[in-house]
């Protein structure tokens, strides 16, 4: 079967972000960018399904500016067979992203679409669910285990109270949680090979999708910083403070 993986280029998770002085957003110029960690897990899962002989082909797609090609090359080095960049300079919100991915899914006809459950920049956790809704496909969100069996996929999901297992009819949309797998390190031969794999750039206008932002960001601010408190010397002092000063126990 064919798997479509959607990845997003985000500010690297190790970067301490800075809010712009004019409160218009977060500084992204001259900041290290990487593949969203949850999308890396999505990519890894697709490659494992291919290594098990379950998947035949992996197509990776991303939406963004020209620099996003770099993120797609990383996905190709992990093991995607071909990449599609839907090129735009616009701010793409989840509903627009889902609409773009819907068109790509209709063109590519995958049996499985795997995405990260959220991107670590906007933290929305919406795109996969929206895409499933637009396609009227079943969804397995926050997945920590996948088993493809015939025309179905068995998904174990991380939910607030523990774990839940569902069986979905294919085609289906999966969003990944942290414990689905441990992504591999890239090998040099794979990085070199990735440069020769096909990467198609599609201007977003060609897809005839409404990408207008529905949410207007009025301002972005730094939250009130918490100040470090005091040092206590031992357990006895700690308990006395909690009892008499903070009065929480």
């Amino acid at each position, binding site marked *: 079967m064919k798997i479509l993986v959607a990845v997003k280029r985000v500010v690297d998770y190790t970067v301490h972000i800075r809010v712009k002085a004019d409160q218009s957003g977060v500084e992204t110029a001259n900041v290290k960018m990487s593949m969203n960690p949850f999308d890396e897990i999505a990519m890894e899962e697709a490659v494992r399904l291919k290594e098990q002989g379950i998947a035949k082909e992996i197509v990776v797609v991303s939406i963004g500016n020209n620099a996003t090609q770099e993120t797609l090359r990383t996905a190709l080095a992990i093991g995607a067979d071909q990449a599609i960049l839907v090129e735009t300079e616009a701010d793409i919100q989840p509903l627009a992203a889902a609409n773009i991915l819907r068109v790509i899914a209709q063109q590519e006809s995958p049996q499985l679409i795997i995405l990260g459950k959220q991107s670590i920049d906007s933290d929305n*956790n919406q795109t996969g669910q929206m895409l499933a*809704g637009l396609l009227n496909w079943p969804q397995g969100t926050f997945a920590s285990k996948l088993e493809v069996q015939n025309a179905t996929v068995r998904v174990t999901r991380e*939910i607030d109270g523990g774990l839940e297992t569902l069986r979905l009819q294919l085609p289906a949309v999966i969003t990944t949680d942290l414990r689905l797998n441990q992504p591999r390190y890239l090998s040099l031969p794979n990085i070199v090979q990735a440069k020769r794999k096909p990467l198609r750039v599609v201007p977003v206008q060609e897809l005839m999708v409404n990408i207008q932002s529905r949410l207007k960001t009025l301002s972005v601010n730094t939250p009130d910083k918490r100040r*470090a408190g005091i040092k206590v010397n031992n357990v006895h002092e700690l308990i006395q403070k909690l009892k008499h000063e903070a009065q929480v126990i």
Partner: protein
Amino acid sequence: MKVLLIAEHDNQHLKASNYHTLTAATQFSHELTVLVIGYHCDTVVHEAQQLSSVNKVLVGDASEYEHQLPENTAIFIADIAKNYEVVLVAASTFGKNILPRVAALLDVAMVSDVVKVISPDTFVRPIYAGNALATVQTQDAIKLLTIRASAFPITPSTDNQAMVEKVPTILPNTLSQFETQELTVSSRPELTAARIIVSGGRGLKSAANFKWIEQLADCLGAAVGASRAAVDAGFAPNDYQVGQTGKVVAPDLYIAIGISGAIQHLAGMKDSKVIVAINNDPDAAIFTVSDYALVADLFTVLPELLTELQSS
């Protein structure tokens, strides 16, 4: 304004999250509708009737809705949501799973993890693991919001008796099927509703040592949390995870033991009222947010803590 609150429940009781979501809902209106979808969920409907400021409870009760799978329930909700201006649900795994699908069906944007309602169309939500707060305005006629429980206090129930209206629509689900659930059974308070949380990290070194955290929690009547590192290492189950992508908590007292304090973990607990950190590394990031810092070996501290708390 016409405001709809989607109830989160297990067919027996309303989850604690609803009482927080209700507080957010009352900032729009004091004549709210609650939607209960499930199967054999009469006790839930009864609890929903008693919620303060609620005057109508809509009920979809059918075996097709037993596990509230989004493939059919999102269609059910979208059909009802069309008649409302604001639709709210807790930003729990239930709300996060279902509301974006409803949004797509209605072709409206959705606002995730609302921590503050500024006006009926303007909200504050955290981005970048809570390291920035975005103020966003929706342009859509229907506002779909998931509410971060830790940012809103609870509204207790009253002797209210809201009217009940059954919604007879039955939508089959041919796309997905429920198989099993493995829920962590615990007599401890729910993590997101607890007054005190004791959380353990990689410093515990093993699942056996993690039992110290549980003992300490039981001694304080607390819930147990964990860092991602502790969950990944198998010391604690996934539903204990506190952080950017796990649970976001704001208890009166948060005790972090053997947790270094990655920004992703801080994102899930930095709004706690009082934070205690115990770690043998004086440079651990957790100390930058703690009110009381104890730099010490946790294996010496834990037995002492237990003895002293038990004796007092």
